[in-house]
C-alpha cells in the first residue's frame, strides 16, 4: 500500500480507480469489446502465466515467466485486437453463440500512485476477481485469481498499461479462454 500522507487524496483516488474498474467490467460483460479495447494503451502488456506445483522454497518457479516461457497470454494490443475481431466475425464457434460472462472485481488496493495520489499519472493496483462464464445450455466455468494492473492517465482518462493475471488453477479447468480477464 502507498504511504497515506494524504489520506483524503488516496481515498478519492481509490474511488476513482474502482469506478474505472467497474466500468471496464461492465464493458466486457455487456460485450462492448471495441470500447473495451479503447481502455487499453497502445503499448499495453497483457500477461497470464501458467502455474506450477513446486517445492516450498522454490516458489519463484511457481509461475511461467513473462517474455520467456509459454504462458496462457503474453501479448500486446495487436493480438488482443485480433481476439476481439475474431469474436466479431460471428463465426468464432467457441464464442458463438456468445457466452454469458460476469466479472466480479474486489479487494482493490492501491499499491503505488505517481507522482502523488492527489495528481496521479500512473497507478499500480492489486485486486481479486471472480469470472463466471456460462454458455450454450449448462456449461459453466468459474475462474478466480489475483490481478495486478498498472493504469496510466491519458487525455484525462485512465487507460490500462499493464495487466498481470494470476489464476488460482494448475490444470486449467476451462476448455478455453475466449474471454478477457
Amino acid at each position, binding site marked *: 500500500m502507498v504511504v497515506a500522507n494524504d489520506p483524503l487524496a488516496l481515498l478519492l483516488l481509490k474511488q476513482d480507480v474502482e469506478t474505472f474498474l467497474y466500468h471496464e467490467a461492465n464493458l466486457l460483460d455487456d460485450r462492448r469489446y471495441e470500447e473495451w479495447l479503447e481502455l487499453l494503451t497502445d503499448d499495453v502488456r497483457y500477461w*497470464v*502465466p*501458467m502455474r*506450477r*506445483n*513446486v*517445492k516450498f522454497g*522454490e516458489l519463484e*518457479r511457481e509461475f*511461467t*515467466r513473462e*517474455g*520467456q*516461457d*509459454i*504462458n*496462457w*497470454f*503474453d*501479448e500486446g494490443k495487436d*493480438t488482443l485486437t*485480433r*481476439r476481439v*475481431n*475474431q469474436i466479431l*466475425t460471428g*463465426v*468464432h*464457434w*467457441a*464464442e458463438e453463440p456468445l457466452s454469458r460472462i460476469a466479472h466480479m472485481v474486489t479487494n482493490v488496493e492501491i499499491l503505488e500512485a505517481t507522482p502523488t495520489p492527489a495528481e496521479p499519472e500512473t497507478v499500480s493496483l492489486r485486486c481479486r476477481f471472480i469470472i463466471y462464464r456460462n454458455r*450454450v445450455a449448462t*456449461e459453466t466455468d468459474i475462474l478466480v485469481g489475483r490481478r495486478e494492473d498498472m493504469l496510466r492517465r491519458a487525455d484525462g482518462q485512465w487507460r490500462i498499461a499493464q495487466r498481470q493475471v494470476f489464476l488460482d488453477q*494448475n*490444470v*486449467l*479447468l*476451462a*476448455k*478455453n*479462454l*475466449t474471454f478477457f480477464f
Partner: protein
Amino acid sequence: MAITFQPSAYSGLVDQDNGMVSREIFVNADIYAEEQERIFTRAWLFVGHESQIAKPGDFFVSSMGEESVILCRDRQGEIHVFLNSCMHRGMKVCRYDEGNTPIFTCPYHGWSFATDGALVGVPFYKDAYHEELDKSQWGLIRVPRMTNYKGGIWATWDENAPDFLEYIGDFRTYLDILFDGWDGAEGGTEVIGGIEKWLVPSNWKFPAENFIGDRYHNISHRSVDLVGIGPSGQGRRDTRERDNARALDISFPERGHGTIVFLRPADAQPVPSYQNDPVIADYFYQSEIARKERQGELWRILGGPGTIFPNMSYLPRQPRSIAVWHPRGPDQTEVWRWFLVDSAAPPEVKEFLRQYYIRYSGPSGLTEQDDMENWNYAHAASRGAMARRHHYNYQMGMGHAVTDFEDGGLRIPGTVLDVTKARAGEQNQRSFYTRWADFMAARDWDELAGWRRGNGSGSTC
C-alpha cells in the same frame, strides 16, 4: 450401461467395409475401461522430452493413460520412468510438476526412493520390520520399456511390445520432421518452458483423429483465418512453401499412425518465409537450404499434423508442438502441450516462435479454441440412447488410397490418399480406427505386430 462388450464385438464397432464407426467407442464407459487395459498398458506412449530433465536429479511428472508417472534423470545421468505411487500404500510420492530432487519421500508413511527408483529409506526399518523387509523388491514400479528417440522420451508398460522404432515403422520419416532441427540436424530441438495443461469435455479420440489429418474442418477455423495470426500476420500459417505442392494423407493402418503432408515438386527450391523480420526470415531460409542439402529428395516432404497411435499428436512445423490426449474418463480429456524450438536458433527466432505458439495453440489460442468447442459438443450430442444407434461416417475417399505412391522418383511410404484435387479424405481416420479395433481385440503383441506376418501393410480400406 446397456451393453457389456466382448473383445469379439470390437470389430463390429469399427465397420471397415462400410467406413463407419460406432459412437459407442466414444461414449461407452465399459469400452473406455477396456481401452485403459488394452491400449494404454500396451502401446508406446509419449512421456516428455529430455531437455526437460537436463541435469541429474531433474524430474518431470507426466502421465501414461490415466496414471501419473515420474520422468526422472538419476544421479548417474540415466533416464527413468516410474509409476508415481508409493509401494507401501499407494500415495503419490511426488505432487510437484517438475523440479530437482535427490530423493522422493512419500508424505504418508515416509518410505523414500532414490532417483533411480530404489527404495532407500523405510521408517522403523529396524524395530517394526525387524530388518526383514527386502528393500530391493519394493522400489518404485519402473516401466519395462523406455526409449529416448531424438530427445522424445517414450515408454510402454508391455515388456513384449516391439522396439519403439519397430512400433513407428516407416512413419519415422514423418516423425523425424518434428524432432530434427529445421535444418535437418538430428534431434536438434528443445522444449520451451511451460507445459500447457487443460481439460476438454470430450473423449480422447476426438482430438487424436482430428490431428491425424482432418483437412475437412476448415470451417472450424474460418474466424481465425479472417482475423489472421500467421507468422506474416495473415491466415493461420505461412504457406507459400506449399505452392504447387501435392497434398497427401498418409497413414499406416497396421500401426495406427497418420499424418498429412505436402509434397513439393521435384524441382522446388526453398522459398523465403517469415518475412516480417530479416533475422527470422534469414534463419528459416538458410535452414531450408541446409535441410535440402542434407536430406536430398526427402526435403520435398513438408510435414503437417499427425498422430502416433494412440494419443500423441504433433505439429512438426507451424506451430511446432506435441499434444498428448490423456484419457480422464469417457467424457473428459486432459490435454498436455509441449512446444519445441531449434536448440541452435538465435534468441530472436525463439522469441518470435514463442509468441506465435501462444496465440495459435491451446485454450488461449485463436485457432484451437474453436476445435475444442467442436469436440465438446460432438461428444455431448453423441451420448444419447438414440444417437448411439447411428455410426459416424468415415467414407470420404474410400477405395482411393494406394500403397505404392511415387512422385518424381520419390517413393512415399505408407497408405497414401492423394487429396491434391479432392482437398480432403478420411483414410487416416479409417487407419486409426482399424488399429484401435486391433488393439481392442488382440490378446498380445504377437497378434498386434501384424506386419511381422507380412500382412496389413497393403490395406486400403
